[in-house]
């Protein structure tokens, strides 16, 4: 984990909502596991003051890239930055995905849930796994390359929820593991499908964060535990962002 103020290597606008920023962090790329994230901040920004947690999207040699969706003030600030502009980054943070045993993996993503799974996919491929990727979004703007595409409005791929695709696919080909990232409702539906089919599911969660390193307890997620009340809150930033879906209390 390090904190550095670093020049942006490149920034590429993918469409009106999404863009990719890449920074060269040298040998530190070796520390990064798929599913980990960095906390990004425009230096000198008073508002927003807090950093924003952004997953690692890809790594090319010593460059790490972040695929970002414009969702608020900070992500709009980053969007208009240029190569050479400085970013204040802390990372890599969080636990990341473990690459489990078994050969067949399904990846399910929704909208901006795509990036952490993209880097995971490259690592799964290197490990020789067979992968089937289902990606969904509200409209075609939210769509990126995958084996199967779903949109809410039918503007790209199949019309409907990506979890419908998961249900259909899994009927014929039961995987060894499922990895998912996306809106809570999608993850909850994935959990129900995974449970019905007895397939382990690992999800990457998102929650409003402050410190990003496990000290402030701001980014809480309710999980099952063996204390007297059976539940507790864990931090998405340090205990997560990746959790096994069966441990989470899906509310």
């Amino acid at each position, binding site marked *: 984990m390090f904190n550095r103020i670093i020049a942006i290597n490149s920034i590429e606008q993918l469409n009106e909502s999404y863009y990719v920023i890449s920074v060269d962090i040298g040998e530190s790329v070796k520390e990064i596991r798929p599913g980990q994230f960095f906390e990004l901040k425009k230096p000198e920004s008073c508002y927003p003051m807090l950093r924003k947690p952004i997953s690692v999207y890809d790594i090319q040699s010593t460059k790490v890239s972040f695929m970002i969706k414009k969702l608020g003030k900070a992500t709009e600030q980053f969007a208009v930055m240029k190569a050479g502009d400085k970013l204040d980054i802390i990372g890599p943070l969080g636990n990341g995905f473990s690459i489990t045993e078994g050969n067949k993996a399904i990846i399910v993503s929704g909208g901006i849930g795509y990036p952490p799974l993209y880097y995971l996919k490259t690592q799964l491929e290197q490990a020789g796994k067979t992968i089937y990727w289902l990606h969904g979004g509200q409209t075609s703007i939210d769509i990126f390359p995958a084996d199967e595409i779903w949109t809410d409005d039918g503007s790209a791929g199949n019309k409907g929820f990506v979890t419908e695709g998961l249900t259909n696919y899994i009927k014929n080909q039961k995987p060894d593991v499922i990895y998912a990232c996306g809106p809570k409702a999608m993850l909850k539906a994935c959990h129900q499908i995974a449970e019905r089919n007895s397939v382990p599911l690992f999800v990457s969660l998102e929650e409003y964060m402050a410190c990003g*390193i496990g000290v402030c307890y701001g980014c809480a997620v309710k999980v099952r535990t063996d204390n007297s009340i059976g539940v507790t809150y864990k931090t998405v930033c340090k205990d997560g962002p990746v959790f096994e879906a069966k441990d989470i209390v899906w509310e």
Partner: protein
Amino acid sequence: MNRLQTRLGKLELQNPVTVASGTFGLEYGEFFDLNRLGAYVTKTITLKPKIGNPPPRLYETEAGLLNSIGLQNPGVEEFIKLNLPELKEVLSIPIIVSFSGGTIEEFTTILSKLERTDGIAGYEVNISCPNVEKEGIAFGVDALVVYELIRRLRSFTNKELIVKLTPNVTDIVSIANAAEEGGADSMALINTVQGMAIDPLSGKSRVKMGVCGYSGPAIKPIALANVFKVAQRVKLPILAMGGICTWQDAMEFFYAGASAIAVGTYNFVNPKACVDLIDGLDNYLSEKGATLQDIIGKVSF
């Protein structure tokens, strides 16, 4: 000569910079040598473990941060067994344990357990957390209760007893006076100011619990006014906090009468905020040819 040396009640500190309870952890050791701090203040512990409040617990507004963590902590037994040994292993600076309770008996039970351990330099009695129903703030708003609580705690320890005050009262001076009469060694102020934010489109509260604690730059003038008011009327030394980000912010609080300061929310923004502040302060005082003690309480009008 150490121009930054200061004293907080019974504690001699190598410099006046500490951390606000709940905003810091050993994790920051990744970014700087934690023993450069004047003292280390733990996250508040309670008698029994607390799982804290449901999310969302945070929301950043135009000039500060709303939070409703709800004192999530493992409880005093677990703290003594697991956390305190880790702190003692890493830290050679004074360790100040923040604690809170729902009744006077809970406070005294925690304190007597902590007193049976070693390695603790002092205590911060949290009677000002706005995010728990029974603990904390229920105590901090009533001068008679504060007096009785501190009097009872005093009989359990000779160590530094810091009382953390809330600004969410009509008259903070009367609460501070009660802490002094009860036998406190020093005071920490301020805890968070009550705040709230609502999504203007959906009408939904940004933080699940609604009204919660507000910190960061927005509350600095409020904290400063409270520190100044209390410093004018109460003899106990003050550990000041509330929106402090830079050494210049800290200087304002020293002029207002604080003997030490704590960085809170800003740790999240700049993980090296505390050491940047210490270095900035040291450089400035060196250039000015002054010591910290020359500054404290010397505000002019």
